[in-house]
């Protein structure tokens, strides 16, 4: 069944056409948000709406800079997301290495239990975590957010990092072990460089997730100084009711850092994912 040249060309047009359409749908909302963020209040409430601002204005950004969205909210987001993602990757490497390389009783069972924790809905733990936080006076702190996020993201992190370590042939480690390297040295000098795409992938996924996390944050944080950007943006509903250009400018501020992070790390992320970082 050899397909003719012409059939192939038609196939290619259909494939590329559909993919271009999906790309447009993917970026349109964000592109339009960017465009709206440069409109004036008057233009925001004009009918019919313009795709591109007629009078470019930075009013939206000025208003956001005057609000608490950047400081302290986005700064908190940065601290919580970065702190928790790094801790998850570090602890995840240690745990995944143990699961991947050591035989000990209960290894498989423990893996299954941790994997099962991915299925625990965040909602289930919220009230208990809130009570715990108020008992230990930890609500409205970055530390407590980071601790919760680490526990929340760790099962998924271990799962992805273990897949990356499993893919490294054990023979590479053996000569290092014969030379007297301890497990931490083996992890540092052999596992880290070889499993790097997997670690980057784990970091990126956790970072994106916790940068954007809302459910835990909205419940634990009611002090304005401790709130994160997603919670702060929700508060815009009260303070900037129809000032959509301000909402959109705020959204741009939240999206930009994480979009850049994604763009920098995308190659390793795509490679690891396509090689089956998240296994069935």
């Amino acid at each position, binding site marked *: 069944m050899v397909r003719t040249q012409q059939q192939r060309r038609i196939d290619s047009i259909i494939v590329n056409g559909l993919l271009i359409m999906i790309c447009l749908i993917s970026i349109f*909302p964000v592109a339009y948000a960017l465009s709206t963020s440069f409109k004036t209040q008057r233009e925001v409430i004009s009918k019919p709406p313009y795709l591109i601002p007629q009078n470019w204005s930075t009013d939206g950004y000025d208003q956001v800079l005057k609000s608490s969205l950047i400081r302290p909210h986005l700064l908190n987001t940065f601290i919580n997301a970065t702190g928790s993602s790094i801790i998850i990757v570090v602890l995840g490497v240690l745990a995944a290495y143990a699961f991947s390389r050591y035989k000990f009783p209960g290894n498989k069972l423990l893996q299954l239990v941790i994997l099962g924790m991915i299925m625990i809905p965040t909602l289930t733990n919220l009230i208990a975590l809130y009570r715990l936080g108020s008992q230990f006076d930890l609500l409205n702190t970055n530390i407590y957010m980071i601790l919760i996020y680490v526990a929340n993201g760790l099962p998924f992190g271990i799962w992805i990092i273990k897949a990356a370590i499993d893919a490294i042939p054990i023979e590479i480690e053996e000569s290092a072990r014969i030379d007297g390297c301890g497990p931490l040295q083996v992890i540092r000098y052999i596992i880290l460089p070889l499993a790097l795409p997997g670690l980057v992938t784990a970091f990126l996924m956790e970072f994106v997730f916790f940068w954007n996390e809302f459910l835990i944050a909205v419940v634990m944080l009611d002090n304005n100084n401790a709130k994160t950007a997603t919670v702060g943006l929700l508060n815009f509903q009260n303070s900037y009711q129809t000032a959509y250009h301000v909402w959109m400018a705020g959204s741009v501020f939240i999206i930009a850092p994480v979009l850049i992070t994604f763009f920098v790390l995308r190659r390793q992320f795509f490679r690891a994912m396509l090689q089956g970082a998240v296994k069935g």
Partner: protein
Amino acid sequence: MIAATTKKESRTAARFRLSWRSLVPFWLLLPSLIFLAVLQLYPVIYSLYISLHRLRAGQYMPVGFRNFERLFADTNFYEGLAVSFRFVGISLVLTIGIGMLVAVLLNQRSQFNALYMVLMFVPWVVSDVVAGTIWRWLFQQDYGIIQNMIQPLTGSTSLYAKPDGALLIVILATVWRGLPFTSLLFLGALQNVSTEVIESAALDGANRWKTFFRVTLPIIRPTLIVAVILTTIAGLNSVGVILTLTGNIPATQTVSVYLYEQGWQFGDFGLGAAISVVMFFINLGLTLVYLRFQRQD
């Protein structure tokens, strides 16, 4: 004498190293296990405990199953469940279906794939709250750009103001965010299907549709099930998109939003904990059902 001491010392050292070595995996796992035990397992048990108590406005006393009785007598709970299942069901079908289509298209390995994938992943980095905010703006009743485009279809009432319309916008925003990751999962699975299998099916005279459904799909079923589980859990827990898009209106009040309302707006934590326990079993039940599909062959 000296030799004996050295020998003894080295024996202790060896024994020490041996016992330490056998505990190596334990030490490596310990930090993770502490985190998971204190902030994942304990809260689940604690939720169960709170659900058997009245915890409201400073009061804290055991009430047996009264919270569950109140919950099961509350029509809002059943309506919330119905909204949740509609929301999760429709977004699941769309995310998985379109995600698979996108993966198959990307698997044709167009020369522009790298560009397509970067553009497609933009929604993935967008927070649910931001997505809710942006989509609310797109469908804003008077000035929303998409609402203005679809005006002839919706008539005088905007889509946002129609009861099912609000839920539809929530679903669209959710699928928009969930699509890239699902597509990538599927693409990874498709690329690992050996071309020999596909070619031999083609030689047997199967057309492309038949090959896909009879040969490819069964091979990538494990990935399909992982995607279904992850999408379902994310959907059942979804609060951010809904709160920002529609606020708390009955048409989009899922169980998760209902829980948020009972716990943090009405301060009824006992009832909230009862809802969260029910949610836990719904999640567990669905996961077990999905996993059954994984095993049967």
